[in-house]
Each structure stands twice: as structure tokens, then as C-alpha cells.
């Protein structure tokens, strides 16, 4: 599934001016699989664009991807950000995590280079007042409430237990969820936390079992969410389990086994299956990388198109000029209508809810923000 | 010169390890300026006695007087500071350090440069360092290791390591020097040199408590002897008297020595 990430584009002979686009995600460490997924999405877009041929300001342009690994580490993130700035990339797709996107954003901002994160959902990311900061997903401040509403309105739950994985993402999402769900009168019977490398959740689940909630909300990734779901079933817990984008993957069905029928989860964007070109994208992706789309590949894919679109409109590959036209982005991308508000957030944020039928991720509801 | 002032006066010291009563109500007096020998069969409790009076092992019981003051040996470093230094039977040098540095460490408790002095190297600190260095070099010469100052301590041969232990202990400026088998591993000639060294140390005003198995050495230089067996004092007195004590002969000296 990996190992031959970079061959074809790298081998392409460069005839025309070379324009570099940076991509950053963790490619090593526990969530390397998601990082690689993001990189693949960007790469796919780039290769398509090169194949179709791109001309800017009358000159033929060849895009190259500069992929970097930030290992989920804030300090490394700033280093590679500086590296991309030095390499004179016209824009950056990334980073994957909010925890790396935020410190890096300062460096892109100082350098005047557009940064589009495909997956950072923490609200703070765009609250810093930088003109260079964009994202293609809804925020946790939208995702949390969406999940909360589902729990209180659709499921009519009276009580809920909340678990998070102590990461910036997981805890942030759980916090947002907690706020709304409380406001709508659902009782939070207990708030628990594990960590993003945990494998055993039995103790926490046992405690939760004692407080008999109608619903368990988990803020965390699929790699932990799967085992958590499974162990809940082993303990005979019948409560519904809801979670955010981090655990909303096909992988979850594999990891949770039969217990996945209990799960409802949200994605901070449009569902692949609800995307107009979704199925086609999936096919092309699989052909090219011989692996399945994890979560955010469509978003990195679109992020590249957004940058190219800006280049075209600015009729320049100068980062400063691109930055000027970025706010006017209006594009119908794979993930839906893309336009930004003044902070750089998506105007039409979409949250999609899923559940799992026959162990397949199935759209339950689409919520437009 | 010898006086009747007791530098070390301990009574009723007991120490038990599990099933072994290593010390059983032991008493020992060391008059100022003397050399007192502590002898006894292997496993009699001699080293344990050292370990107890220097605070390495907590005593089960005992009354301890050092230089007229009562003390309870709890902290090894405090005991050293009060003027009781020792050497170790199974040599414990600072192997990575040079021979000279080993002795300089010994000067630790008689010098005072603190953190700020170390960092900022005040003139007074530099002077102190200089005097420590000179004093240590002098001590090495004193025990006959003057030429080995820069060697790594662990590369010294066994006999030289024993001398270094003595030099290091002397650097703490003890009133009482407690030596645990300093002659072990030395041949007869080397033992003679050691004997000279010990006599010189005494002549320089120090008191010595000596554990040693070499009968001729012990009998030759000790003013008085205490004999332990199975943790109990079985005899005490002048070497000439102890030497003919039947119990001592039976337990320690053997018939061959008579």
C-alpha cells in the first residue's frame, strides 16, 4: 500500500516552469496511514493537472509536490514549514492535525504563502487573524453540535457518557459536543479520557456501564475507536456510540467487527459517496495507490485544485498574487461548493452523519451549516 | 603521644543480619594517639563493626562516643566530617578518576567552595582549588604514590590501590583512621613499608584503628588488641597477652602460630 508513492510524478520530465506545491502530514508514527492518505490525495490531483496540462500567464507550468513529514510534532511542523517556504512553494496543503497546522500557520503567514488544511478542525486555527490560513473542512465547533443534535433530537437520548483520547482533536471535539448536548438538556453522566495509543478501554467502559447512559460519545480516531466499540460489546453495553471524523472510516468497521452496527459518526465534510465524483475518485485512487481512501484524501485533492484555480485567476504563480485572489475562491470541487468566509473557514460547511449497515459506511444524514 | 583520652569509645554494639548475629554487644576503646588492632576469624564481624561505627549500617543497639562527644552513627558523611575516616576491605576507589583526583575528592569535606564559587571561579575559589591540589599531591607522595598521580585509579595494581585508599582517607583530615585489612595482597617486604607508613601516620598525630590478619604486623605495631569471634569480644589487651590467650589461639591464630 505504500512504498511507491512518488515515482511517476517525480519521473516526469520537466518541460515548462516548475511550480512547487507543499504538502505536510505525519508520515511516521501512529497515524502515518492518515498522513499518507492525505499525501496521496494531493498527489493524485497534481498528476491529473499535469497530465491535462496547465498554462498560466501563457507559460506552460508543471506542478511538483514537495511532500514533508511533520510526525505530528509541533516543532518539526515549524521546521518543515520553514523548509517549504525556503523551497519557494506557491502554497501548502496541510497540515493534517490542528496541533501542527496552528504553529506552522505563523510561518506561512510571515512568508505570505497560502496554507490550506484539508483536515484541521480546531476552531482556533483560523482565529489567529492570518490572511494565509484556510481550511476545507468544517470545524469542531460545527461538528460537535451536529453530533449533539443528532444525539438529543434523533436519538432522543436522556443521558450520555463522553470519552476522549486526550489529543487536541479528540478532546476539542468532545468539549464542543459536551457544550451543545448539555444545552439541549441531555445529562452528561460521566466524562472520561483515555489516550491516543491506548488499546484497552475496559476499565473506562465498565465505569460507564455502571452509569447506564443512552449514548456514548467518543472523541478520537478509528484506531482507538474500533477497539473501544468492540470492547463495549464484550462488556454487554448496549448504548449507541457516536464519534467524529477521526473514527468515521471504513477501517472502523474492520476494527470494531460486528459491534460497529452500534456506531454513528460524522465527517466534517461531504461524504465520499455523496460527492458527485466520489465513486470515480475512489476508483482512480485505488488504481493509482492500490489502497483505499481513508478520510481526507478528497480534501487534499481539492486543496490542490483550489490553489491551481487561484493561480489561474491571478494569472500568476506568485504566492503574493495568489493570496490576493484566494478570498474570492468559488469552486465546485469534489467535496462540494468551496468558498471561504473572512476567516478562511468554509462558507458552506457540511457535516455528514453515517452509520454502518452490513459493516459498510452508509450515509445517514447530511447537515448543511 | 599516647594519652588516656579516649578518642573512640563504643559499648554494647549489636547488629543482626537475618539469622546471623554479626555483632553481639561489642565494646571497644581507642585511646588518642594509639594504634588499636581489631582481629578475629573470618566472618567474626570486624568489617561489620566498621560499617556500624561509620554509619553505613544502622546499629541495632549501642552507645557511641567519639572524641568525648556522644554520636549516633546514621550518616556516613557526617561521621567522616566529625573526623573518623575509613578504608574499605574490598577496595572502593573512584575508578574512572585519576589517582590525584581520588585524593582531591577526599578533601571535599574540608573545603567549602559552593555553587557560585564553582560557576564564577572567584579568586578565593581558585586559591582553594590550588591548595587542594597541592595538599593531595603531597599526600600521594606521603604514601608513596607520588609518581602515579595522573594514572587512572582503576589501572593501579592491587597493592597500590590500597595505598591510594589510605591517602584518600587521610585527605579528609581524620582524627581516627580506620583501616580494613590494608596489608591484604601485599608481600612481606611491602608489608614492612606499610608498617613504616602507619607508624609515620601515628607520629603525625593520628590515631589508628586497624583490622588486619597479618599477625606479625598487628602484633608489631598495635598498642592494644581486641579480638572478635562470632560477633563477641573474646579477648582484649596487650598483643603479648592476647597472643597466648587460649581462646584466641583456638579460634584465630591456630596452633601453628604458637
Amino acid at each position, binding site marked *: 500500500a505504500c512504498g511507491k508513492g512518488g*515515482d511517476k510524478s517525480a519521473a516526469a520530465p520537466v518541460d515548462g516552469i516548475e511550480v512547487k506545491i507543499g504538502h505536510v502530514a505525519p508520515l511516521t508514527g501512529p497515524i502515518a496511514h492518515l498522513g499518507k492518505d492525505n499525501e496521496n490525495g494531493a498527489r493524485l490531483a497534481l498528476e491529473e493537472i499535469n497530465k491535462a496540462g496547465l498554462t498560466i500567464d501563457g507559460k506552460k507550468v508543471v506542478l511538483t509536490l514537495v511532500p514533508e513529514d511533520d510526525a505530528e510534532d509541533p*516543532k518539526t511542523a515549524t521546521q518543515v514549514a520553514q523548509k517549504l517556504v525556503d523551497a519557494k512553494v506557491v502554497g501548502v496543503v496541510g497540515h493534517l492535525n490542528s496541533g501542527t497546522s496552528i504553529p506552522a500557520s505563523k510561518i506561512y503567514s510571515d512568508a505570505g504563502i497560502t496554507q490550506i488544511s484539508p483536515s484541521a478542525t480546531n476552531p482556533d486555527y483560523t482565529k489567529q487573524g492570518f490572511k494565509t490560513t484556510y481550511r476545507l473542512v468544517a470545524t469542531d465547533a460545527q461538528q460537535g453540535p451536529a453530533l449533539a443534535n443528532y444525539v438529543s433530537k434523533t436519538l432522543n437520548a436522556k443521558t450520555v457518557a463522553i470519552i476522549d483520547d486526550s489529543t487536541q482533536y479528540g478532546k476539542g471535539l468532545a468539549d464542543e459536543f459536551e457544550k451543545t448536548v448539555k444545552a439541549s438538556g441531555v445529562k452528561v453522566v460521566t466524562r472520561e479520557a483515555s489516550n491516543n495509543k491506548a488499546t484497552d478501554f475496559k476499565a473506562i467502559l465498565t465505569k460507564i456501564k455502571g452509569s447506564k447512559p443512552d449514548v456514548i460519545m467518543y472523541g478520537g480516531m478509528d484506531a482507538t475507536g474500533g477497539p473501544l466499540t468492540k470492547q463495549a460489546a464484550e462488556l454487554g453495553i448496549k448504548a449507541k456510540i457516536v464519534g467524529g471524523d477521526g473514527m468515521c472510516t471504513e477501517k472502523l468497521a474492520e476494527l470494531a467487527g460486528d459491534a460497529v452496527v452500534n456506531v454513528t459518526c460524522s465527517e466534517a465534510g461531504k461524504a465520499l459517496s455523496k460527492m458527485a465524483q466520489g465513486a470515480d475518485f475512489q476508483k482512480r485512487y485505488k488504481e493509482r495507490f492500490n489502497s483505499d481512501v481513508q478520510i481526507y484524501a478528497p480534501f487534499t485533492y481539492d486543496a490542490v485544485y483550489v490553489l491551481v484555480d487561484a493561480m489561474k485567476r491571478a494569472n500568476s504563480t506568485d504566492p503574493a498574487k495568489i493570496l490576493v485572489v484566494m478570498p474570492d475562491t468559488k469552486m465546485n470541487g469534489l467535496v462540494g461548493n468551496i468558498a471561504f468566509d473572512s476567516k478562511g473557514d468554509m462558507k458552506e460547511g457540511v457535516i455528514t452523519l453515517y452509520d454502518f449497515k452490513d459493516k459498510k459506511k452508509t450515509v445517514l444524514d447530511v447537515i448543511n451549516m | 603521644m599516647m594519652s588516656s583520652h579516649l578518642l573512640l569509645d563504643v559499648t554494647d554494639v549489636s547488629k543482626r543480619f537475618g539469622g546471623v548475629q554479626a555483632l553481639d554487644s561489642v565494646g571497644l576503646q581507642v585511646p588518642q594517639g594509639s594504634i588499636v588492632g581489631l582481629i578475629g576469624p573470618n566472618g567474626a564481624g570486624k568489617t561489620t563493626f566498621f560499617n556500624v561505627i561509620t554509619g*553505613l549500617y544502622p546499629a541495632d543497639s549501642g552507645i557511641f562516643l567519639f572524641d568525648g562527644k556522644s554520636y549516633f552513627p546514621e550518616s556516613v558523611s557526617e561521621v567522616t566530617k566529625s573526623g573518623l575516616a575509613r578504608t574499605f576491605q574490598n577496595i572502593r576507589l573512584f575508578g574512572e578518576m585519576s589517582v590525584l583526583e581520588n585524593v582531591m575528592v577526599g578533601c571535599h*569535606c574540608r573545603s567549602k567552595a559552593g555553587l557560585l564559587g564553582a560557576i564564577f571561579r572567584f579568586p578565593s575559589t581558585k586559591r582553594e582549588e590550588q591548595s587542594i591540589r597541592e595538599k593531595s599531591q603531597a599526600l600521594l607522595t606521603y604514601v608513596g604514590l607520588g609518581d602515579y598521580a595522573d594514572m587512572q585509579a582503576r589501572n593501579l595494581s592491587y597493592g597500590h590501590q590500597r595505598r591510594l585508599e589510605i591517602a584518600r582517607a587521610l585527605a579528609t583530615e581524620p582524627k581516627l583512621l580506620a583501616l580494613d585489612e590494608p596489608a591484604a595482597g601485599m608481600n612481606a617486604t611491602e608489608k614492612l613499608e606499610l608498617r613504616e607508613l602507619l607508624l609515620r601516620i601515628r607520629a603525625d598525630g593520628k590515631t589508628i584503628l586497624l583490622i588486619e590478619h597479618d599477625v606479625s604486623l598487628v602484633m608489631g605495631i598495635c598498642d592494644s588488641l581486641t579480638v572478635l569471634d562470632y560477633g563477641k569480644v573474646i579477648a582484649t589487651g596487650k598483643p603479648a597477652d592476647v597472643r597466648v590467650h587460649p581462646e584466641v589461639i583456638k579460634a584465630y591464630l591456630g596452633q601453628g602460630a604458637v
Partner: protein
Amino acid sequence: MSRSSYLWLGALALILLPWVVGASGGNYWVRVLDFALLYIVLALGLNVVVGFAGLLDLGYIAFYALGAYSYALLASPHLPQHFETIAAAFPQGMHFSPWMVAVFSIILAALFGIILGFPTLQLRGDYLAIVTLGFGEIIRIFMNNLDRPMNLTNGPKGITAIDPIQLFGVSFTKPLDFGFVQVPSLYLVFYLFLILAIAVTIVCLHLQYSRIGRAWVAIREDEIAAKAMGINTRNMKLLAFAIGASFAGVAGVLFSAFQGFVSPESFTLWESIVVLAMVVLGGIGHIPGVILGAIVLAVFPEILRGVAEPVQKVLFGHVIVDVEVIRQLIYGLALILIMLYRPGGIWQKGVDK
């Protein structure tokens, strides 16, 4: 050449370094150097604990975290935003100067060093290692969770918008204009960190060849014998912890001012291990070696980052193995090989006596 002319030449080389590196490799490499300097400070501090006193500390990064969070809290909008009383007390926002905070964190970190030291006095080797490891994790977990019931640390989200460094009214975020030459901000940071690193190096050198340094080594070599020399081993160990911790505390303050963002993720066990690796790989107990170790481990992975792809392209025409995979492979291999060929460290203590 005389000793002093060597010194002058060295000083000149260091002053020119960011310019040369910046011109040939870009700001990215200057930033790498900046971090390398911070790591030198960290490694030297850990060396006091592990190298001099022989106390294996796997939670060293906690002190770095303490420094970083001290500054982050005292020089960012975070506290005023979440505590009305503080907002009222500081109508202009909290903007403590890094220098004040640095002094404060030296004291704070040293204090924590002592607090950590106390329960561990009896412990040896790996028992000490696990307790210090635990201590490091405890600090990190607190940082991660102290966003409730009161939001003190903002939890895993970390603290943003931390004031950049200012020195005599000169901000380190903007280039400094001398008229004839402009010194870019990253270069300014370099000089600042360089001064700190040099100061720490001098302190370490002085300590090593002092009464205190000797006492530490004695404790490392044989604790019982050290006690028998009248060394108060308890105080000396605590002192080692405190000094090592205070270096990390200062480094933490500068880190947080430089980054403008801190979160618990920067202070994981892995960071502690990396700093330990710098000490051991360079030459434990040997100051030049430790400095070299810090530089190597801070710079080497970045070199790999740069060359893994072009080299493959030159050799095979295209990229066969992903860059990050190659990087990890070589990194792991390098750790092993260096230890195999230089078990005492790259630049170990010679027989320099």
C-alpha cells in the same frame, strides 16, 4: 597560533555561520541551527544529571515544559481570556518579559528538580529511570488536562499567540536594520541562543572542574565511597537535578517565545529520549562531545530529509522508497552504527589529563 587567536577565529566563524548557512541553504537551515542550539542547552543540562552525577533521567523534558508553559502563560492572552480577575489585573494583557520569566523558570524548574530528586535519592539505575520517566509523564498529563475545571493550560489545544522575544526594545520577529545591513529575525534568534549556549557551556565546564563536579563524579563511581569522603550525597544529587532542570527551564522559555505556540505534544517521552541520545551518542560526561551529539542529532535528520529524494533520483531515476521511510531507516541504523563503532560516544573523553 595562540589560544586567543583561535578563540577569535571561532567567534568570527560563529557570527558568520547563519549568514553562510542562510545564503547557501536558506532560512530553513538557520531555523534548524536555532533548534540545535536549544538542544545543546538541553543536552548539557541533562549531561549534568546523567553524565556527571550518573543519575539516569528519562523525564528531563518535563523541566523544559515547565519553562515553556511558564512563559506561555505569562506572556499570552490565554490567562486573561479565561480568568476575569487576571484580565482585570492586566488591562493591557499579560506581557511579562522573557527575562523575568527566565529567572522565574530557573527557580521553578530547579525547585521541581529538587521535588523530583527527593523521593528518588535511594533509587539506582533503572529504578530511577522509571520514576523520572513517570515524573515527565505526570507533568505532561497535567498540562494536557488542566483545562478543566479551570482552564489553566488550555489542555491539548495548547497555547497560541505567545509574545515573541524582545530585547532592549528590539523585537526578534522583525529583521533588525542597521542601515548598512539587515539581520533577519532567525539570525537574531541564532545569536541569542548562541549566547545562551555559550554561557551554559562555560558554566558546565566550570562545574566539571570544581569541587562540586568532583563530588558528582565520585557519587557516580561509588556512592558509598563518596559518602565516606564526607560528601553529602543527598545534597549533591539534588543540586545536580536542580542545575540540570534549570537549564531546561531557560531553554523552555526561549522555545515557547520562539515558537509562539506550546502544546503538550512537544514534551513527550520521546523528546526526553532524543535528548538522552544526544548526550550518550556525543560522549557522555564530555562537554564537547555532548555539544556535538546535540548538533548531530538535531541536524542529521534534517539532512536526510533533504537528500533522501534527490539521491534516489540520481541513483535510480525515480523515488523507490518513500522519503520518510528512508529517513527513519537511516536514522535508526545510524544510532546503532555510531554506538557500535564509538561505544563511548562520537567524541568521548580522551586521556586528556
